[in-house]
């Protein structure tokens, strides 16, 4: 069963579309379920690759 905007639906009734985005910043996968041309479910999962880095420095006198 898939949770959709129309409630729980059997997956066999839906068209499934999947995709992946892979770049320097992230690897993202998404899955969509469509019912007669209408998007009824979309989930996305992002794997972050790029952290936030701060560089600590000391000054010279």
């Amino acid at each position, binding site marked *: 069963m898939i*949770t*959709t*905007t129309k409630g729980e639906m059997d997956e066999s009734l839906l068209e499934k579309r999947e995709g992946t*985005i892979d*770049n320097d*910043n*992230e690897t*993202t996968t*998404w*899955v*969509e379920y469509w019912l007669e041309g209408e*998007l*009824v*479910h*979309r*989930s*996305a*999962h*992002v*794997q*972050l*690759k790029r*952290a*936030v*880095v*701060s*560089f*600590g*420095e*000391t000054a*010279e006198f």
Partner: protein
Amino acid sequence: MANTQAMTTSFKVDLFNAVHAFNGTGVPAHTASTADTFKAALYTAASSLGASTTSYTGAVTEVSGTGYTAGGVTVTFGTAPSSSGTTSFLTPSASITYTTVTLSTSFDAMLLYNDTNSGKKSVAVYTFTAQTVAAGTFSLTMPTNDATTGLLRIA
């Protein structure tokens, strides 16, 4: 032996733990056994979040939709800040997950902020390819918690 000018690695770890207070303004009382609560909020792709974003309350373009609570979700830091070499690092110990939400306006940023702090001070902004969610789950999976890929690093 020779002396070497450097910001000490222990200080870089201490920054994550609020050990030092150079100025009393806005510094809450902390003890080693009391951790603040941090949250992750999502922001629309039309937002302008970045290094100049100072707080959650100052960022007004948060997403809204079914199943999403304003302010976002709590972020779990189950592993204490650590260091390797001269880099300190800290990474949430679990994925950040928004379960069964519908977010129709595309969003491409997450603001990590201190929810315990009265000013809801910001920590970091993370961006990703713009997404929408329909009766689904959005999750941010964390990188390996080390000096190379840790989510927050002070090198």
